[in-house]
């Protein structure tokens, strides 16, 4: 509580020194009749930064450290009779002591040592709070005092402020890098711990996936990646079989044939598909598409399970149609009109022009779009969690249930966070595999797209 009050005080102080620096700079300019290097508000901003920046930093650090130090001193001073308490009991005791100290009171008898501890707690927190106030205000005061002495006609406050702004902007752009570093390191770290249990050969080339949660601890189960990878490939292949023809033909029709009015209606409607959350597709697959396929299968005399590679793949295909279509549409539209005119002038029909001139010219970009769609399909989670049936077996039947890498990550990690056994750690090895595969696909796709772009610019 006192922390946020202090922060508000510091901010108020910041506003005051801003105004102070503004006046001072203004007065100097008027008194000397000369032009100062920077406008008053830059002086103000500079002083305000030196007032609040270091002070808030100190406040933040103090707030992190204070509870730890107080807690430690309290636990150290407990009588010996309380030394054997479990960590949970100590926590309960501390809460009782804090309730006593705050005057809220507790139910039941108050032991003398509790009373003493509560008083000690009160004393220590009072000292800590006072010290915090003094230190933070001191830092703010010293910072502003120093910065205020710098407010001179010749002082280049604007340059300093702009340097700070640029530093801030640079820091923000570094966060994206930090994210990637975080992903790579956390995945690698946890995956290495997994490989201490299971050898990488068994993981990457094993054909049985059966991570049994055995309590004996000796038998870890089997962690073969291949059935999952096979399931992923099967579902993705079905998705692409749906999405590529539909998406590509839609793109061609939109870019080459469609009347403007139809295009302005149909393009945004199809792109709605890209904005729908994947959980909605998953439920849609489960409620509508799966039963539909099962009925069709029964009618044809084939056994099609409601949750199968086919269901998940078709629904995923529907999801990535707008990906393929809008990316391809952009690329087809970028093909220079002169190529079309040349082909049409030689007497080719419109479709011949498209198939023999436009598409070959657009091919690298379209392939890039397909690769991006593939990486999207491989990393997709919720549709397969709901609709693929979760049966990690090596088989070639698209009408039966499969399991994928993403499904297994969800199954292995949901609800478990102590990351002790291979059962949960395997999720990170799977995640690393997934990350590497999608990264490779993206790099190749971006490379192809970029190379294509250079041809016409």
């Amino acid at each position, binding site marked *: 509580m006192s922390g946020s009050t202090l922060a508000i005080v510091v901010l108020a102080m910041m506003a005051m020194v801003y105004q102070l620096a503004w006046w001072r700079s203004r007065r100097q300019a008027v008194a000397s009749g000369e032009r100062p290097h920077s406008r008053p508000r830059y002086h103000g901003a500079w002083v305000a930064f030196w007032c609040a920046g270091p002070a808030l930093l100190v406040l933040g650090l103090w707030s992190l450290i204070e509870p730890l130090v107080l807690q430690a001193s309290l636990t150290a001073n407990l009588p010996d009779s309380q030394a054997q308490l479990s960590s949970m009991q100590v926590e309960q005791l501390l809460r009782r002591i804090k309730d006593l100290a705050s005057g809220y*009171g*507790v139910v039941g008898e108050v032991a003398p040592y509790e009373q003493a501890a509560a008083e000690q707690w009160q004393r220590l927190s009072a000292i800590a709070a006072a010290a915090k106030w003094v230190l933070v205000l001191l830092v703010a005061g010293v910072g502003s005092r120093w910065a205020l002495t710098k407010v001179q006609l010749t002082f280049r406050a604007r340059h300093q402020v702009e340097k700070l702004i*640029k530093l801030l902007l640079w820091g923000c752009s570094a966060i*994206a890098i930090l994210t*990637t570093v975080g992903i790579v390191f956390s995945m690698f770290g946890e995956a290495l711990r997994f490989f201490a249990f299971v050898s990488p050969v068994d993981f990457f080339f094993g054909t049985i996936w059966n991570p049994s949660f055995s309590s004996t601890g000796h038998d870890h189960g089997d962690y073969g990646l291949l059935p999952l990878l096979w399931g992923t490939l099967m579902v993705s292949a079905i998705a692409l079989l749906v999405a590529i023809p539909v998406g590509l033909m839609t793109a061609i029709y939109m870019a080459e044939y469609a009347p403007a009015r139809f295009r302005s209606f149909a393009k945004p409607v199809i792109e709605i598909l890209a904005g729908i959350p994947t959980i909605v597709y998953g439920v849609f697959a489960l409620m509508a598409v799966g039963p539909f396929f099962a009925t069709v299968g029964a009618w044809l005399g084939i056994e099609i399970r409601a949750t199968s590679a086919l269901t998940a793949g078709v629904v995923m295909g529907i999801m990535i149609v707008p990906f393929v279509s809008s990316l391809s549409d952009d690329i087809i539209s970028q093909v220079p009109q002169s190529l079309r005119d040349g082909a049409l002038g030689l007497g080719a029909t419109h479709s*011949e022009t498209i198939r023999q001139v436009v598409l070959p010219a657009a091919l690298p970009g379209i392939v890039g779009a397909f690769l991006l769609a593939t990486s999207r399909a491989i*990393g997709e989670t919720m549709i397969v969690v709901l609709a693929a049936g979760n049966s990690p077996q090596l088989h070639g039947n698209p009408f039966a249930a499969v399991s994928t890498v993403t499904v297994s990550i969800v199954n292995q990690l949901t609800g478990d966070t102590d990351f002790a056994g291979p059962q949960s750690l395997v*999720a990170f090895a799977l995640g690393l595999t997934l990350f590497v595969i*999608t990264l490779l696909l993206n790099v190749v796709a971006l490379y192809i797209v970029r190379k294509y772009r250079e041809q016409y610019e």
Partner: protein
Amino acid sequence: MESHTLSTQDVLHERMAKKLKQRHRRERLFKFAGLLATCLGLAFVAFLFISILSRGIPAFWQSTISIPVYIDPELVAVEAPPEREPQESQAAFKARQDAWRNGLMRVSWNAVLAAAVADLYPQEDFAVRDVLALFTSAERHRLRDLVAQDPSVIGSTLTLNFLAHANVDVWLRGNISRDLPDAQQQLPPKVRALADRMAADGYIQQRFSKALFLNTDSRSSAASAGLSGAFMGSLFMMLIVLLLAVPVGVASAIYLEEFAPENTWTNVVEVNINNLAAVPSIVFGLLGAALLIGWFKLPLSAPLVGGLVLSLMALPTVIIATRSALQAVPSSVRDAALGIGASKVQMVFHHVLPLALPGVLTGAILAVAQSLGETAPLLLIGMNAFVANVPSTPMDQATALPVQIFLWQGNELRNFFEARTAAAIVVLLAMMLGLNLFAVWLRKRLEKRW
């Protein structure tokens, strides 16, 4: 001789005509295939929306039992609520209050409900169990809370609305076949007959389900399960995304577009952002699980952790949208600002950024909408836990709308929760549609000004 040439020409002509016909047929076929694919795409959209809406819209109405209830002082025999005495510590007062509430809890509210239904049909004799099967179990707690709030209602008769049990709702709406034999029905025959009779007499009506919006999830009382907890969780996460991902994303886009020198570092950052945009969402969930929960020991199931993970996911989207908005500002604006002596920072913040603002805001809103629909990473950081309270801070346990949909679709009470799930999807889609329309409106409105 002449006739011979003519005939050769005729043959050629005929061949060409034939070939041409074939080529034109192919042309028509190709065009038709394109139209077919487009229509297929449109049909997918239509099929998706029709199947969701046809299931979800009816679930906004729910069987509600509306009957007069006599709060019998004999059944509800409790003392007056305690008042705080002077010199009593707050903890001791709270203990006494809890004791009084416990006393209320021991009252047989079931008997009150059973008596209310029995009063409707005085000449009949119902088993208490059959009557209670009509009500969803949370309703007696509601009755208790009503009395706890205002003990003066004891002894009076109130007309109250109660949610019917999920199975009763399923039966009355015909979501379970009436021809099934007793063994396969979810309700015993007497309860079904009573439900039908009360529906015919107007005591059970289909009313708009406020519970869906005002209640939290419920395990024991399916009919009163609602979305408010999940909604608050999603709201907290969207706020965190708005406060973290948007400023950071805009700042780094400004740096990359306006200040970054052409060097290896900049190249690395750019390639990295493009790749980050295509990393599967579940990988971000793994990052959250390992880093935020495993190392920094942040609490499980907290919207704070979810918000951080979603912020990292939304960052590339914001950056890419902001960059294209900045690129769209004509370079003449930059030249003019620099030409009259503005510094680079002044040029960006006084001239370029205000002009790019519509695009930046649109990108930010779309990024927030995208993170509203994300499910997979949240499953890995424990947001699929059952949470019965509305979270009041971002550190409390919570779930999110899409995760709630995931949890409901897996509920065992299939024929009740299928509709409930679809209704939740309608709510989610409506929110996303709202955000998208807001983005469009904002862009139109702001673009006029510049």
